[in-house]
């Protein structure tokens, strides 16, 4: 009964490849997020969707594209992977537009680029 689940947990791939990370939440929340945590544990928001509408679109390379087929799912597709993309990517969800409600995080996808 995992609340926010991400797949895969680990992703090891070659530079230049295209990969996707999937996220699903069963909490009934209407807002979902993607964060990137670098090797120094710094956490940065990438995207957020509220009811399938993009509400946060931070300065990330165009190679990163989120897609929300419904409010329980938010996937992240990455084209032409680069060494600097190596990080842990976290999906999160919350009620409302993320204002005063806590966010619930998945356990992350560890992306390693060879």
């Amino acid at each position, binding site marked *: 009964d995992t609340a*926010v689940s991400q797949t895969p947990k680990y992703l090891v791939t070659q530079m230049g490849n295209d990969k996707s990370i999937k996220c699903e939440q069963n909490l009934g929340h209407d807002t979902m997020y993607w964060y990137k945590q670098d090797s*120094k*544990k*710094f*956490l*940065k*928001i990438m995207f*957020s969707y*509220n009811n399938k509408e993009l*509400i*946060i679109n*931070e300065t990330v390379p165009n190679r990163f594209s989120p897609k929300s087929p419904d409010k329980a799912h938010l996937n992240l597709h990455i084209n032409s992977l680069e060494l600097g993309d190596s990080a842990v990517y*976290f999906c*999160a969800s919350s009620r409302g*537009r*993320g*204002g*005063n409600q*806590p*966010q*619930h*995080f*998945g*356990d*992350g996808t560890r992306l390693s680029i060879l």
Partner: protein
Amino acid sequence: AQSVAQPEDQVNVAEGNPLTVKCTYSVSGNPYLFWYVQYPNRGLQFLLKYITGDNLVKGSYGFEAEFNKSQTSFHLKKPSALVSDSALYFCAVRSSYSGAGSYQLTFGKGTKLSVIP
């Protein structure tokens, strides 16, 4: 722009002693403040939040935090530390203003808490 400072990269405390993890913030308008904890190879877990009301907020696992508007601080505290409290702690803030660009939380860089048996 909003920002969070966690001035200590690491805090060491003996088991049973009180602990404090510091956080200061900068935001336009009134702040919404949060503390999260991250255990190794896990996602962040919500501990507590301050939105409005009583300056002393109580949260999960015996943690509490005090909102101090004049000092723009929101320090995390616990009266008696446990070894199992050892983890990475993040403070986060967003403005109470609505509008474009205001929905996101800004996280501090994290403070590693080590509780020594």
